[in-house]
């Protein structure tokens, strides 16, 4: 741990990793047993990378994927959208409102 002369702790730079919140719904939420998942990803990761991370933790989601869509910070995006630390993504199974 690094300290200054006055004893303050210097935050370690962890700029090569980032954390994003992943929201799960409906069949995916039930398959995972949770509605929220924190993905720890390398800087430069995309929405597809986060999805792969979720599927790695909860393989049953991959099996129920169908025509899964994505949202990033509450707007629809494609899988190639870049992520930033603190982002919220949502994995959207086929919708059925109305």
């Amino acid at each position, binding site marked *: 741990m690094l300290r200054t002369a006055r004893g303050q702790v210097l935050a370690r730079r962890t700029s090569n990793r980032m954390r994003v919140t992943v*929201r799960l*719904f*409906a*069949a995916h*939420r039930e398959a995972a047993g949770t509605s929220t998942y924190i993905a720890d990803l390398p800087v430069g990761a995309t929405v597809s990378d986060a999805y792969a991370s979720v599927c790695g933790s909860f393989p049953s989601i991959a099996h129920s994927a*169908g025509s899964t869509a994505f*949202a990033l910070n*509450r*707007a*629809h995006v494609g899988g190639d959208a870049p992520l930033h630390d603190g982002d919220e993504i*949502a994995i*959207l*199974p*086929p*919708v*059925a*409102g*109305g």
Partner: protein
Amino acid sequence: MNPHFVLTGDPLDEHAVAALLESDGAGAVVTFVGRVRAHSSGRDVTKLEYEAYPEMAEGVFRQIADEIRERGGVIDVVIHHRIGTLQVGEVSVVVAVSAAHRSPAFDACHYAIDRLKQIAPIWKKEHSSDGAVWVEDRP
């Protein structure tokens, strides 16, 4: 909260929705009311369970209204959707559109409910005597 775009666990009132569209220029108000049907693909439905991404849904309703305004001819749009457990006959969605004349109001209302089913982050689980399944609509 904008009263025009609402996701709620409370029962919907289509008359209150239409009342939001009262204006001197609105010669036509078209309201679509979606209700829980007792039968689906040969199954006897007992209830529907609606789930949404609430922080996103109202923004999508607003986006649909913006798309309609870009098409022109419409005065105002209201979209209310219910979530939670609904019994047969209960109202799940109300879409209402006002316009000077009937034709653009009908067209816009039709567009709005189709678009909602296509892009709104809402899901429903259908409970029947055969069990419960998440519905995958084909828009």
